[in-house]
């Protein structure tokens, strides 16, 4: 059983469209991070959210942490081909050491 359920697993959209990726759990996280990974590289940190209900924006990317700190979403506005990649959510469980629990990832393909 996966602790962090990420959906959708695959997403293929046209350039200019909007999309949302979800990360859900029944567990509470002290913080949650979103990473983007390119082939042959390691995950690159995009954002960290800590407070329940927190919303952070990074250009066209909007990240939200659920009020109960059990879920998160990543919304991309007007997707570009350069947004193509594997998006990963990862959280630190409350009370645990600093290890991260990862979701399985969303492979996003933005078509020209």
């Amino acid at each position, binding site marked *: 059983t*996966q602790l*962090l359920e990420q959906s959708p697993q695959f997403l293929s959209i046209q350039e200019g469209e909007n999309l949302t990726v979800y990360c859900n759990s029944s567990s509470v996280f*002290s*913080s949650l*991070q979103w*990473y983007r990974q390119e082939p*042959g*590289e*390691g*995950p*690159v*940190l995009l954002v*960290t959210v*800590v407070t329940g209900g927190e919303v952070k924006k990074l250009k066209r990317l909007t990240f939200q942490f659920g009020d109960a700190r059990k879920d998160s979403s990543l919304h991309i506005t007007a997707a570009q081909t350069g947004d193509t990649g594997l998006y*990963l959510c*990862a959280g*630190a469980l409350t009370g645990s*050491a*600093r*290890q*991260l*629990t*990862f*979701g*399985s*990832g969303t492979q996003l393909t933005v078509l020209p």
Partner: protein
Amino acid sequence: EAGVTQFPSHSVIEKGQTVTLRCDPISGHDNLYWYRRVMGKEIKFLLHFVKESKQDESGMPNNRFLAERTGGTYSTLKVQPAELEDSGVYFCASSQVRIVSTEAFFGQGTRLTVV
């Protein structure tokens, strides 16, 4: 500032052989983590060092895996003897204690193939 670097980037070994992976964390980062992604699965935690001490090794799959971090700088992860199911991508990450203590920066990974 140099990021987390891992060596080698790829390794192909035969079942029963030994392989040692190396990770150089970001300078000054006390926390060093090893993670692994096997085919079709999510990235999973292996262990966590704080300086030279093992803080948490609950994710290590079995005693064929040995991690060290002598002097609190770079770390090595040895697999001996390697089995087919050890194939995957091994990631190292490091972090420094900050307000948000779980921010971690990842290396590019070592792709291990056991044949």
